[in-house]
């Protein structure tokens, strides 16, 4: 991490000073002796590796205790740290991380090309898509990753009494993302913020049920009872459920519940006509509620008005109808007390009676939403929304703040830093790194704040800081480190430096050190082929030369028909080109030489012998053939080490070739010179004596001299 981490005020990662009480976990290490050293390091993922070192047992000393033999010297324990956020498991988190790469990268590239374009055309925007539309596309893509509400498997025949569909529980992360989207990215919904919040609560009210009663939890209870109840209208819970659902604007549920009223049953219709008429009238009024928004999804109730004047007209008319119904004479004729009172309460809610709203809602945000719907549908601007929220919180105080509410209050309070802090504290680094895009699109001030280079952050911006933090987390896991560069390259100040560090840590193709390690590892473990391959990749001439010496001894000793097959592949791998093979390239020629020699012994004489000689000359001419191999090579061509006594003298055979000498004068001279050089070198103290019979040098010299004589005669 760049910079320092000293006191909270200028710390890199914003963290809340209100640290919860530390939790103590005990680790079992089973070490009897006192621990002399403790080492803690990160293992993969969220694993901490704790190494315990016991006190060194002193076996040699006189005081040595009896049990020192069964004493373990130390122990390593891996501690898995689970994340605070229990609602999303690690695999799901990785899935989100993988999925957000493409939308993020696309948005960054659009940002770059857009800034390039604006620089070039200097503001003449003929072809210009609004930036927020790109951000919105990005937001929708990310939102999709966080899961879509899936209905739980339901029975094929739908129960008419099912008012609340069983849904898979959404995550707080998704709820938080949508909240950010509503306020910062979706510029179209800016005029209908209250209605957007109504929809948002409808989707996520069940998340608030964790901490207390909500309209949702009330309806869940009611749903359970509905199945057994005969006359629902007699039960006060039925009317409570209707009023509560109405208060938060779940009109479909309200209408569905109303239609379960007993007066709808065919056998009752006759004597409960007036009662039924009133229920139906209320149901119709509810389904015709004017809404100030562009559209409603299919199946949703209410009538949409896009402009304020149209809405005001409809709103006044609707309220007029409610008032008219309230004063109607039919109420007197309604005998069923619960129905009468229940419906009247419903009308009060529709008329925006604050007392009624207060009693039927549970959580402050439900009261808040009900105010938007029935009291102040024209609430505009975050300032007035914020003050209304505070009023509702005073009316319905909660003991603890839900993390979603913390985020919402930060947004309404128009404090970018608080929003970021809430995101970071409650939803983690992934959320912050990605939500910054929404925040910067939200307002000019936020953009300036997040893009400003800060001295206390080591010259980087808040935006870059959070990307760096997220990239760090990605690079700590084997499966996600490959994503980290995408985020690091979007960091202009420190990104490249960290990317270098990250790549340096990874086993990549051109990292010679790692290739060498791989090579040495394979060689040591007997995989000579792999060893040489990796050392070739690393272009490690020194080691390859050393290996060549070992191999030569090995090849020389064991070359026979059967073992030759084994060598075939390896020598093939070494290749014939003199590129990165080091001293090993001569092995390739040596192989050819051996092959020809073998054929001579097998009786394929003429061509093979010529080839053998050519290979020998090539080998002896080649500067890369080490001097210490000269004599073995020459001697080899005289007597192959693996060949039995009766086959000996094959070089003599080779050199005393019956038809004509195989070596011409210059070739013989070359070999004789080499022998001379070798005799001189023998006097040198560093000379390594080859493992050959003592007369080897002389017998080769003799054979060569004979050949020279024959060659003279020939020419």
């Amino acid at each position: 991490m760049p910079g320092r981490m000293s006191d909270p005020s200028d710390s890199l990662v914003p963290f809340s000073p209100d640290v919860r009480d530390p939790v103590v976990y005990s680790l079992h290490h089973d070490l009897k002796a006192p621990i002399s050293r403790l080492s803690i390091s990160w293992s993969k993922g969220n694993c901490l590796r704790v190494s315990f070192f016991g006190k060194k047992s002193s076996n040699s000393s006189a005081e040595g205790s009896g049990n020192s033999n069964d004493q373990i010297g130390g122990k390593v324990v891996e501690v898995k740290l689970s994340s605070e956020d229990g609602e999303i498991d690690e695999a799901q988190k990785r899935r989100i991380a993988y999925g957000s790469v493409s939308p993020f990268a696309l948005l960054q590239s659009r940002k770059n090309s857009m800034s390039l374009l604006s620089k070039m055309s200097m503001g003449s925007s003929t072809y210009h898509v609004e930036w927020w539309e790109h951000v919105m596309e990005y937001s929708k893509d990310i939102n999709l990753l966080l899961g879509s509400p899936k209905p739980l498997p339901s029975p094929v025949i739908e129960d008419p009494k099912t008012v609340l569909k069983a849904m898979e529980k959404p995550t707080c992360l998704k709820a938080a993302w949508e909240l950010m989207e509503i306020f910062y990215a979706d510029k179209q919904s800016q005029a209908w913020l209250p209605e957007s919040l109504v929809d948002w609560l409808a989707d996520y009210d069940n998340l608030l049920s964790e901490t207390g009663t909500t309209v949702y939890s009330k309806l869940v209870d009611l749903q359970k009872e509905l199945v057994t109840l005969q006359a629902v209208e007699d039960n006060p819970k039925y009317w409570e459920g209707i009023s509560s659902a109405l208060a938060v604007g779940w009109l479909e549920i309200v209408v569905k519940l109303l239609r379960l009223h007993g007066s709808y049953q065919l056998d009752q219709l006759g004597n409960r006509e007036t009662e039924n008429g009133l229920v139906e009238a209320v149901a119709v009024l509810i389904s015709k509620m004017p809404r100030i928004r562009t559209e409603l999804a299919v199946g949703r109730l209410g009538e949409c008005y896009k402009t304020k004047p149209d809405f005001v007209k409809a709103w006044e008319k609707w309220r007029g109808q409610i008032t008219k119904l309230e004063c109607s004479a039919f109420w007197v004729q309604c005998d069923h007390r619960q129905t009468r009172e229940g419906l009247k309460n419903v009308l009060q809610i529709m008329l925006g009676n604050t007392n009624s709203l207060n009693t039927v809602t549970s959580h402050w945000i439900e009261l808040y939403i009900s105010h938007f719907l029935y009291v102040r549908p024209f609430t505009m601007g975050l300032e007035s929304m914020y003050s209304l929220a505070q009023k509702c919180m005073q009316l319905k105080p909660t003991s603890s703040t839900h993390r979603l509410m913390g985020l919402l209050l930060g947004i309404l309070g128009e404090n970018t830093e608080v929003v970021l802090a809430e995101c970071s504290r409650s939803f983690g680094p992934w959320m912050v790194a990605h939500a910054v895009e929404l925040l910067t699109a939200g307002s000019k001030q936020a953009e300036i704040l997040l893009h400003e280079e800060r001295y206390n952050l080591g010259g980087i911006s808040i935006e870059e800081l959070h990307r760096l933090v997220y990239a760090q987390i990605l690079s700590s896991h084997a499966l996600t480190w490959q994503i980290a560069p995408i985020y690091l390259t979007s960091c202009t100040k420190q990104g490249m430096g960290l990317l270098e560090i990250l790549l340096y840590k990874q086993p990549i193709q051109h990292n010679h050190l790692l290739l060498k390690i791989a090579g040495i590892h394979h060689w040591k473990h007997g995989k000579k082929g792999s060893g040489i391959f990796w050392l070739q990749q690393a272009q490690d001439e020194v080691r390859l030369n050393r290996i060549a010496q070992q191999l030569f001894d090995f090849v020389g000793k064991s070359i026979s028909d059967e073992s030759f097959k084994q060598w075939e592949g390896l020598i093939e791998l070494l290749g014939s080109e003199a590129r990165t093979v080091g001293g090993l390239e001569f092995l390739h020629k040596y192989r050819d030489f051996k092959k020809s020699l073998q054929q001579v012994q097998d009786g394929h004489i003429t061509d093979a012998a010529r080839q053998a000689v050519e290979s020998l000359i090539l080998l002896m001419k080649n500067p890369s053939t080490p001097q210490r191999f000269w004599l073995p090579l020459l001697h080899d061509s005289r007597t192959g080490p693996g060949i039995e006594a009766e086959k000996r003298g094959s070089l003599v055979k080779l050199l005393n070739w019956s038809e004509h000498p195989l070596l011409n004068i210059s070739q013989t001279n070359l070999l004789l010179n080499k022998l001379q050089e070798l005799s001189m070198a023998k006097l040198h103290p560093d000379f390594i004596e080859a493992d050959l019979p003592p007369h080897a040098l002389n017998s080769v010299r003799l054979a060569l001299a004979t050949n020279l004589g024959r060659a003279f005669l020939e020419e």
Partner: protein
Amino acid sequence: MAMVAEGVGTLQIHRISQPKYIDALRWLSPLSAFERFAVLALHDSDSDVSSIEIQALNRSNPSNLHLQSSWASPARISTLRVSQIPQKPLVAASTYMGSLHFLFTDPVDASLESELSLAEKSFHAGPISGIDLQGTGSECVSVGEDGRVNLVTIGDSKLNYRRVFDSHGLVSYTAAKWASPAEFATGGLGFSLQYWDQRKPGGAVSQFKGNWGRGNMSEIVHSIDIHPSRKHILLAGGSSGTVFAWDLRWQKQPVLLSGIVPGETVVSPSESEVWEVQFDCYMQSATIGNISSGQILPVMMCSEDGILAVIKQGEQPMEILAEPCAINSFDIDKQNPSDLLCSLEWESIVILSRQ
């Protein structure tokens, strides 16, 4: 689900996330007409546990996977093979620990019936890098970095193996493939290929070494394939986007299908590691007749840079998928070659259907 317009038709794509890393995957086509199965070799990075799972795919709704059976592996799986006989569905898996496992499954519902394992120290030293099941499912060839080539005979209740060859680590092998009941091929480092004949013991009968590598470029054969009708042609895919075919009848000149090679003009769909190659048997029967015996049949490959493509000799490669992450392996359904299965680096599988 997404529909993608293609040159030849449409492509149905289903992406399914898995909570684990997929090391290998294969189709398993049983006798059942309604269902078919995918065999997945999985690795859980959190718990470091490896397993083989058989997932059932609904023919009408492929994105609906459900677990049929699962088997815990003692180590991470390096290669996965499935016998192609529907009456005898057999799954073979080799591990990085050097053990080889055979899972016998029910021909109808693909539930696991029994398991045979070979985990002797003398079998392989270190990871097994390649295995292949013979057509009849009675023999399996295994190769490793240790330079051993083993033949395993699969009995009903017993496994026997014999060493075909041991290079004592002088040569490391990375892939194996049967050509006929007696012949098989292997691939290894330095773009090398070997052709073996059980009737001629003592070593490979033919060897090939690709020598177009440049300096520090890595040259490893990752995968090989042989078309049943043309056993003399070895197909190999490996480092740096390289895909080549080696015709045993023209030993000196391999046919380069993809790759960055100085002096060669071949359009490469990828420049990174080619993890798997297979002959693509999905094509109109009319066109197959038009391909002369000297020409290489269409080839499918997947790569580290996220490309799944079909290469036809002398034509522009046809991209089927371009993913933001690596495509680590794929399999063509032998019974229904329009259907493909591939595994992505980002812990997910993709089911494709060409129409």
